[in-house]
């Protein structure tokens, strides 16, 4: 099989689907390739909501939203991108409603809005109602709505096909080449074949699976980011990874911010609301990075529950009615996965790896860029969690990821539709898929060697314990050789499943390679950034350092385990950096 499309979208989360929709509506022959059925993408897990300054309940302006995004990101945000995000969020939400998404309503019938951490009125004066939501299923309904619209517009779907390589012509991506398509692997039967296209969007989501405790689904292994990197595109700002404070102990499933929004307490072993020592005014509602750090410090000082590595989320005082009606998912999760009854017992929680601020560098038209001068890789685009515009800077605000998907997914589709017209379809050499076929065959045919699941566990442990919420030079310096060692052992990885049908053993081994790529750049970038900013907390450099580090990290592939780091200035248009206090 060989296929040809004018535009190719890799990934069927919110970002990929909106891009596909715009393209198909513009009459471009478009296909979406996804390793999961589209509506099983991780966007479906987002329950919080999507922010847009509609001002339906109180005064609000997109400029305020822009400011909050920049401050939340600890001034590492590119302000031109934040402006686009905040402005276009408004039209995107209305457009979604017109596609049939059932948003909750105000009493006079408009889209309802609620408060969310870090979103404020008048540049930080107090909380504002900005988050639009559809029950506690906003992401899920976005996904379903866009998927059905894509079908209507005639988008072709290749479900359960995994992209295993990217193709370029006229040189590699890092050398001025242009996108020419992808190599796909059909999961059902192991068939491998190239798909040609002169416009390729990477919308493959994040890589939270690098950590032991994570809210991320199994499929989030940084595929698009790592594949682009192997072809010469840098990874940007990898040292910034958000930990959400309230994950279920041991497994990381997210208990949403709503629990604290409704008035839930965080308690340590002696039953103390310890946040009063860290954020006396905001208490439990301080930003995610701050609360996660506080939990970590309590645990480290022996005040975790029973001396263990977690604290309690206590909602008992809210009463049965509030708990069951306003926090149904949390209640369900605690009951099913912990056997805990939140109405009568406190729920054990610990920080969980949640969101990758870093990823593939792009400009505000979603075109992938490959250096500090924003040189574009022709025909290659990125959007969603896989991309780094950067609109989230050093720390993403709640609900801003969904906004990012909508605004920049849509922009990607529009930009690609504009550009595909003038480009001839690429000509692919015969057997372009051969190198990756050989790589996969090598893993499958190796009679014995390192076990992928074991390497994956070791990687997740080192990232969680040494590159987690807090970092310092000694621990990062231990993590670096460990990741290198894992990479060396990965050269000998083998699998026991030798078949072709639904061979997840093989694909997981392949995905481990992507995670190792992401881990290597994360550690190197974290070691080099000798300051604390947003989600990146260095105990040995506790202050933000705008003189030396108000810049984006670009990590290029170098010798195995030794990426090359370069830096790119942050775009500042309106708001000069200020200390970030809440």
């Amino acid at each position, binding site marked *: 099989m060989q296929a040809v499309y004018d535009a190719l979208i890799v990934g069927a989360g919110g970002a990929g689907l909106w891009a596909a929709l715009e393209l198909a509506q513009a009459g471009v022959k478009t296909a979406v390739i996804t390793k*999961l*059925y589209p*509506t*099983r*993408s*991780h966007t*479906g*897990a987002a329950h919080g909501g999507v922010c847009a300054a*509609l001002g339906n309940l109180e005064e609000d302006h997109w400029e305020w939203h822009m400011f909050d995004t920049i401050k939340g990101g600890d001034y590492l945000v590119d302000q031109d991108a934040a402006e686009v995000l905040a402005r276009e969020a408004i039209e995107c939400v*209305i457009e979604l*409603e*017109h*596609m*049939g998404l*059932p*948003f*909750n*309503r105000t*009493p006079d*019938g*408009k*889209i*309802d809005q609620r408060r969310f951490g870090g979103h404020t009125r008048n540049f930080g004066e107090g909380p504002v109602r900005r988050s639009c939501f*559809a*029950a506690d*299923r906003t992401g*899920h*309904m976005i996904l*379903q*709505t866009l998927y*059905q*619209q894509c*079908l*209507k517009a005639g988008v072709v779907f290749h*479900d359960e096909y995994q992209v295993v390589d990217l193709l370029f012509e006229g040189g590699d991506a890092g050398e001025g080449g242009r996108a020419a398509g992808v190599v796909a692997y059909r999961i*059902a039967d192991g068939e491998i074949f190239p798909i040609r296209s002169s416009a390729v969007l990477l919308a493959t989501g994040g890589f939270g699976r690098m950590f032991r405790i994570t809210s991320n*689904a*199994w*499929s989030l292994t940084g595929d698009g980011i790592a594949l682009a990197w192997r072809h010469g595109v840098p990874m940007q700002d990898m040292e910034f990874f958000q930990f959400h404070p309230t994950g279920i102990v*041991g*497994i990381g*499933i997210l208990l949403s911010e709503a629990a604290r929004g409704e008035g839930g307490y965080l308690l340590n072993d002696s039953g103390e609301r310890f946040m009063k020592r860290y954020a006396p005014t905001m208490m439990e509602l301080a930003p995610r990075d701050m609360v996660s750090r506080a939990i970590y410090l309590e645990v480290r000082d022996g005040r975790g529950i029973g001396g263990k590595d977690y604290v309690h989320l206590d909602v008992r005082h809210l009463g049965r009615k509030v708990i069951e009606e306003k926090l149904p998912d949390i209640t*369900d*999760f605690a009951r*099913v*996965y*912990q*056997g805990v009854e939140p109405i009568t017992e406190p729920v054990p929680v610990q920080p969980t790896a949640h969101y990758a601020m870093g990823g593939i560098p792009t400009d505000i038209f979603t075109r992938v860029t490959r250096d500090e001068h924003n040189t574009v890789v022709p025909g290659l685009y990125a959007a969603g969690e896989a991309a780094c515009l950067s609109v989230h800077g050093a720390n993403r605000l709640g609900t801003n990821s969904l906004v990012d998907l909508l605004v920049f997914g849509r922009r990607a589709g529009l930009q690609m539709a504009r550009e595909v017209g003038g480009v001839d379809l690429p000509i692919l050499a015969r057997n372009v898929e051969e190198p990756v076929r050989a790589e996969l065959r090598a893993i499958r045919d190796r009679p014995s060697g390192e*076990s992928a*699941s074991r390497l994956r566990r070791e990687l997740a442990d080192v990232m969680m314990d040494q590159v987690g919420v807090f970092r310092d030079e000694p621990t990062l310096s231990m993590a670096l050789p460990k990741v290198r060692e894992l990479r060396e052992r990965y050269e000998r990885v083998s*699998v*026991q*499943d*030798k*078949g072709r*049908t*639904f*061979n*997840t*053993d093989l694909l997981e081994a392949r995905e481990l390679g992507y995670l190792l790529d992401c881990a290597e750049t994360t550690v190197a970038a974290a070691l080099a950034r000798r300051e604390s900013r947003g989600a990146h907390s260095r105990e040995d450099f506790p202050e933000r350092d705008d003189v030396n580090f108000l810049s984006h990290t670009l990590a290029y592939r170098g010798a195995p385990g030794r990426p090359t780091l370069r830096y790119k200035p942050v775009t500042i248009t309106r708001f000069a950096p200020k200390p970030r206090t809440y």
Partner: protein
Amino acid sequence: MPDATLRVYRGTPGQPAHFQDFQVPVDEGMVVLDALHWIQAHRAPDLAVRWNCKAAKCGSCSTEINGKPALTCKARLSDFAPGETIVVEPMRTFPLIRDLVTDVSWNYEVNRRIQPFTPPADVPQSEWRWQQQDIERVQEFRKCIECFLCQDVCHVLRSHETDNLFIGPRFLVRAAGLEMHPMDTADRLPFLKDEGGTGYCNITKCCTEVCPEHIKITDNAIIPLKERIADRYYDPFRMIWRRLRGTKAPAPAPAATTKA
């Protein structure tokens, strides 16, 4: 804690299938999916399992556990009696790919046959106004995670004689979400009555029982749709009216839905 015994279906189409037993060490809070992962990591790396979120939100991990359609990521080991063997099998209604993985693509084909959301052409492009109570009705249906457990349990689909004559509970839920959307103008009743095969459902409610999202499939989606169809096509006054007007009254379902 004592070990759990899992009896897992192994096989590919065309090969004789068998069950394989595994003793799995049990930890607090474990679900069946955790046990399957333990098996993959320690005993049978080639066991094929489909999953993604492990939070009962993506609908990937559907199987039959002790004969009952269920999500492996939501079935707690502690809910089984001590010593009870936990039998895990693929969904029986759909073709097998391998082990616990089935080919559910038929459902996506069915989905394409339902006319999507169709707002009026002359609707204002500004924000719409509608009421919370109308929204909630639609939201219930939109909670569906497409696990297809309801499709799996429905005897009409399970018997396989009616595969393409009945779209199944999942898609009646979807149709209801569209039909009850206050801004939708499409008319799906003729489709639901004929190609959709709504008449095949005899309201056994098995689908509602297995739905992990607790959607009241029969009471809130299927019965109202059946009523709308009955009102339009089988209301005696309307039938007389149509006869007087010379339009031919349709024959009663399900006879009318049986096509060659």
